């Protein structure tokens, strides 16, 4: 019966801990290590949440006639030995189905996106969209379709030569460092435990910072800061004129923080400071292991229910 509080504790505190830990870390730690630490912690918490749901939900699944006939146990007997009330199991099973559906949706969306992209020669390709709104975006090909940089003519014409180089270097850094993989994994972790949504926003910020630092390496910190800042300012101006004043302020832009970080000296704390994330990973991982060990006893129960 101890599983239920354990599972709930795991699912609720994991995301909080990840966020808590990422906050003080992000300022002076290199963004790539921050991103790696964050995404690892998110995966462990996500997997732990799925594991916790499975631990509570299995008696319901075991009662389904088809599953019972496969395992050759009696679906009626399972209920007698189940360690959690059937109602609790049913709720967990519903949540589990919702989680699996969301994860499938995340994967299918990504697959459809890659599928829709045109084939072409491997390597990078620049697509310029003739649009006055300045924007830049990278489209990862998953090694299957060509990687693409999508940039608007408005952006290219509003920046000087060095700033343009910084923007291209930034988008290239997203592609080179496989940031799309981080984003997909994080999306799956959020699908598994929606409480991690804020962690994903933090991860997105770290990935942008990572790409900024690479661009600063190719050009310079001040050029990259100017490119990022001026692009955002031009976008804000455009959006305001397009929406006639009522700008859609979503939830705060990360650009001032990024520009501020670029104007500061480069972050120098490396992987040694992953300790904070490691703590979350170890605690969540330990809970996961307890769950797995507990699952062993389910086998015994099912054996008895034959």
């Amino acid at each position, binding site marked *: 019966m101890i599983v239920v509080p354990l599972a709930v504790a795991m699912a609720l505190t994991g995301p909080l801990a990840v966020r808590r830990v990422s906050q003080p870390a992000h300022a002076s730690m290199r963004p790539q290590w921050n991103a790696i630490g964050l995404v690892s912690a998110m995966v462990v918490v996500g997997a732990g949440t799925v594991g916790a749901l499975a631990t509570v939900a299995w008696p319901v699944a075991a009662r389904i006639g088809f599953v019972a006939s496969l395992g050759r146990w009696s679906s009626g007997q399972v209920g007698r030995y189940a360690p959690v009330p059937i109602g609790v199991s049913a709720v967990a099973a519903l949540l589990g189905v919702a989680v699996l559906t969301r994860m499938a949706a995340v994967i299918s969306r990504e697959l459809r996106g890659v599928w829709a992209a045109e084939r072409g020669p491997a390597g990078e390709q620049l697509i310029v969209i003739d649009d006055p709104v300045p924007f830049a975006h990278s489209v990862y090909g998953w090694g299957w379709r060509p990687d693409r940089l999508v940039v608007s003519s408005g952006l290219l014409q509003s920046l000087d030569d060095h700033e343009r180089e910084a923007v291209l270097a930034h988008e290239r850094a997203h592609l080179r460092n496989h940031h799309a993989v981080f984003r997909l994994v994080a999306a799956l972790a959020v699908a598994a435990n929606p409480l991690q949504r804020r962690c994903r926003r933090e991860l997105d910020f770290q990935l942008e910072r990572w790409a900024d630092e690479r661009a600063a390496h190719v050009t310079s910190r*001040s050029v990259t800061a100017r490119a990022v800042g001026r692009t955002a*300012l031009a976008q804000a101006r455009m959006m305001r004129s397009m929406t006639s004043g009522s*700008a859609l*302020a979503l939830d705060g832009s990360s650009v001032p923080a990024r520009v501020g970080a670029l104007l500061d000296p480069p972050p120098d704390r490396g992987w040694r400071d992953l300790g904070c994330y490691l703590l979350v990973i170890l605690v969540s991982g330990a809970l996961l292991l307890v769950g797995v060990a507990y699952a062993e006893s389910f086998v015994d129960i099912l054996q008895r229910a034959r």
Partner: protein
Amino acid sequence: VADTDADPTSRRPAGELEADVLAALWAHTEPASANDVQAALGRPLAYTTVATILVRLCEKGMVRRVRAGRGYLYQPVVNESDHLTGQIRRVLARAGDQSAALQGLVDSLSPDEEAQLLAMLHDRRDDEGATEAEPR
């Protein structure tokens, strides 16, 4: 081909050079000569390399070449609009939900953040020399 890439630590794949040249050409609002493009590129690149890449881009239909005096001027080719909306749609589809896509493509600054950003960039301007502060 004489490739005088200044930084030997960064090996640049062919696609990357093409992208740089194409971007430089787009940034130039008027038709540009190979010399103009060479001058606009961030890092030093041999004239012959730039010219070769421009020819390759012409062959791919991404750049148009017009005769001007004794040489050629180059101009980026604007794709048909339906193709472009297709590309954008694909980018949006890839980014997942629409609001996230919009956020990914265009950053929305609040007026406060805008002022903050302007101040930050302005402080830096003094030691940078005068390029225009306002994006066009």
